[in-house]
């Protein structure tokens, strides 16, 4: 006879294994790219040109404090580690709420926890699975460093640190799932805490007066372990302490709530109906306003921070000719001017806008899969109308987000005394939106023909496109590879003028793919709940 917890473990493994594999590959790839970059710049000797840059608070705010950068491991940890950690912790936090709160929301735990498995055991099994996943990712990172010839002790410490950081946020996600319902609220709260701790780390690293804040955030501890430098094992105790506290809170909270409910219930009475829900466009907008608000805040914060960094980085470049030469050697020479920096940042905004577009479009798939579109599409509007509205509302959200990010970018630059005009920031933001056109078309095409693959394949394509455009030039990848990335064809607006051919090309690709997708969507079976 199969025992409850064992079958739950098998179920969790099935739910997670593909995601874990992809994330592990991402971790290994990021580390491999970091190590390769270190070798390309000439190792420790090549770092001399970047010495001033490494001590810049602005750069520290972006990448973290550079510890042990004269080794391939330390350099990789500094260059890739912080954003790698951000990506992996975000993923595991959302996974934690999906596996626990998500399973309660859709009722799949109802049968489970009335059998041999209690709710507490089910939660404990999820927690154990998340911790094992975190450990595996840490192990993958450590193994990658060891394989690259780094010290086993330092590599092991890095793996343990990354694993503990990931486990900490996994447990935070699980705690949020006990406190809040539904899943969207639990995920938002957990992701909000994660982002707050990351921003706190940025502030602590960027503003020397408040550097003590580094000790108030797990991302700060992640730095303070100083792997490949002084290897401070004792910092890991902080992670362990927080893990114990969060686990205890999770257990205590789980004990005090009903299955299917969060400890903090929200009012379920709506006194007056929302004015917009009676129309397709209004309904689609109301379902995405939370998403739009969150993205606007996150992207605008990032933009404002980048704006603050423009002047210090450009000033630094002007005082370090060797640094300028290094940047030029690796294809980033344009970053030594303010407009060039804004143009280079366009790459990140392009990717952010593309993910926002996919997230907004994917809500349609989620609604369809849950059966929420059955009655509206059977007795109300045509599928195409719903899809058209989804694309229109998504476009509106993108334009507003881009405009507000341009304003925030300009505001940050203005505060720091930058010399880029507000119009230039708007031009750059508009240019960053162009990449979202083929991405939307690609997603819609997949939605029309292979809907279940739409999110994964599109997200993967965005990541690959970004990696090629961001690291390809520095790693001297062949032009034949670089041209495959649509981002490679976008000029550095406002430093360079718009490229009408690129815009028209991407618009054409987007429209053709979109039309193909609509054609498929109108003809295929709707998914049923």
């Amino acid at each position, binding site marked *: 006879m199969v025992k409850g917890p064992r079958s739950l473990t098998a179920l969790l493994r099935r739910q997670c294994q593909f995601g874990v594999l992809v994330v592990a590959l991402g971790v290994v790839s990021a580390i491999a790219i970091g190590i390769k970059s270190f070798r390309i710049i000439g190792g420790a000797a090549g770092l001399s040109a970047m010495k001033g840059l490494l001590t810049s608070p602005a750069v520290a705010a972006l990448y973290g404090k550079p510890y042990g950068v004269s080794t391939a491991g330390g350099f990789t940890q500094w260059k890739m580690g912080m954003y790698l950690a951000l990506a992996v912790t975000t993923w595991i936090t959302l996974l934690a709420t999906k596996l626990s709160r998500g399973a309660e929301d859709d009722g799949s735990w109802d049968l489970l926890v009335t059998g041999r498995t209690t709710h507490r055991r089910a939660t404990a099994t999820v927690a154990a699975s998340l911790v094992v996943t975190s450990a595996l990712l840490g192990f993958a990172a450590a193994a990658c460093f060891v394989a690259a010839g780094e010290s086993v002790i330092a590599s092991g410490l890095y793996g343990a640190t990354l694993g503990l950081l990931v486990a900490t946020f996994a447990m935070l996600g699980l705690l949020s799932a006990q406190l809040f319902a539904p899943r969207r609220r639990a995920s938002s709260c957990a992701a909000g805490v994660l982002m707050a701790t990351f921003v706190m780390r940025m502030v602590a690293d960027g503003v020397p007066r408040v550097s003590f804040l580094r000790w108030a955030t797990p991302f700060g501890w992640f730095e303070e372990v100083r792997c490949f430098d002084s290897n401070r094992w004792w910092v890991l105790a902080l992670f362990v302490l927080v893990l114990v506290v969060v686990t205890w809170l999770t257990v205590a909270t789980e004990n005090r709530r009903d299955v299917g409910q969060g400890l903090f219930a929200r009012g379920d009475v*709506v006194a007056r109906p*929302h004015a917009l*829900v009676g129309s397709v466009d209004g309904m689609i907008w109301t379902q995405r306003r939370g998403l739009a608000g969150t993205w606007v805040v996150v992207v605008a914060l990032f933009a404002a921070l980048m704006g603050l960094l423009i002047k210090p980085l450009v000033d630094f470049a002007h005082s370090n000719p060797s640094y300028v030469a290094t940047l030029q050697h690796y294809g980033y020479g344009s970053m030594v001017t303010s407009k060039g920096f804004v143009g280079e940042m366009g790459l990140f905004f392009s990717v952010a806008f593309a993910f926002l577009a996919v997230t907004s479009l994917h809500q349609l798939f989620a609604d369809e899969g849950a059966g*929420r579109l059955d009655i*509206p599409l*059977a*007795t109300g*509007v045509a599928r195409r109308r719903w899809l058209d509205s989804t694309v229109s509302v998504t476009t509106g959200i993108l334009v507003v987000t881009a405009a507000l990010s341009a304003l925030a970018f300009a505001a940050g630059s203005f505060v720091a005394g930058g010399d880029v005009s507000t119009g230039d920031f708007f031009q750059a933001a508009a240019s960053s939106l162009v990449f979202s056109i083929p991405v939307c078309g690609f997603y819609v095409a997949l939605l029309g023909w292979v809907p279940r693959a739409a999110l994964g394949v599109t997200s993967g394509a965005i990541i690959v496109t970004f990696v090629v455009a961001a690291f390809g030039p520095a790693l001297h990848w062949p032009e034949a590879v670089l041209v495959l990335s649509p981002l490679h064809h976008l000029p550095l607006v406002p430093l360079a003028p718009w490229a009408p051919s690129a815009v028209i090309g991407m618009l054409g690709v987007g429209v053709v793919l979109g039309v193909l997708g609509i054609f498929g969507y109108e003809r295929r*079976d709707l998914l049923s709940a």
Partner: protein
Amino acid sequence: MTVPALALEHLTKHFGATVALDDVSLEIAPGEVVGFLGPNGAGKSTALRVALGLLRPTSGAVRVMGHAAGTAEARARLAYVPGDVALWPRLSGEESLTLLEGLHGVVDVAYRARLIEMFDVDVHKRVRAYSKGNRQKIALVAAFASRADVLLLDEPTSGLDPLMERVFRECVGEAAARGQTVILSSHILSEVEHLCARVAMIRSGRLVRVAAIEELREHAAVEFDIVGVGPEVRTVAGVTHWEGTRDRVKVTVTGSPAPLLQFLSTQPVTELRTREASLEEIFLSYYDVPETRG
């Protein structure tokens, strides 16, 4: 010639290698209340989802009041209640009704208010706080208030309590009285027996019988409880089953009862009771035998 409210024309639907519907043809006249019966997985919901335009037929066609399924004209004439109603959890019941009515374009506001009262549902609550039954009530209110020509109801009362089931029957009765067509897929056979004049039975994707309930009864087995005859009754033509003692038997007769009645006229019968087969027994007679596919 009257245009059928719903016409399935040689409808076939495959899901990969699985044949969900196999050459199903059925016509339902305007104003009819038809039961759609079949065991789980027989193809009832698939047929309804094709009629709603949610699934595309592999071959064949569906017409709603003469319009191809999935077209704007067909949608405007349809109302639908699925067995498991999925709505947006953050919307209130009232917002859900506003959305569904806004998309359909037609609502009888006064009737909607009456339905909300009859079904006793708090429309100010968010959908996430609703039970399955309450979500079903919202979908039923939206469907009936739309006054659509054709109501496709796929196990619409599976989450309702007996009181609300009675309200549902009342609403179907009112809809039928107004000339609306109702197609009711249900496992509650007493409900189908009470509401429907005709039933369509489906098995493994094939339509096995379409008939009026009275017609089914005419050809169904009738049970006789007789005092005053012995086991010799089993030899009478038409008797398919018997049980009993020396002078009291229960026999089941399939087809005409004339031979039995003729036999009984020669016997010292002191008591005779008959019982017609219920729809459930008729249903089981169609499904409780191994399938033979040609």
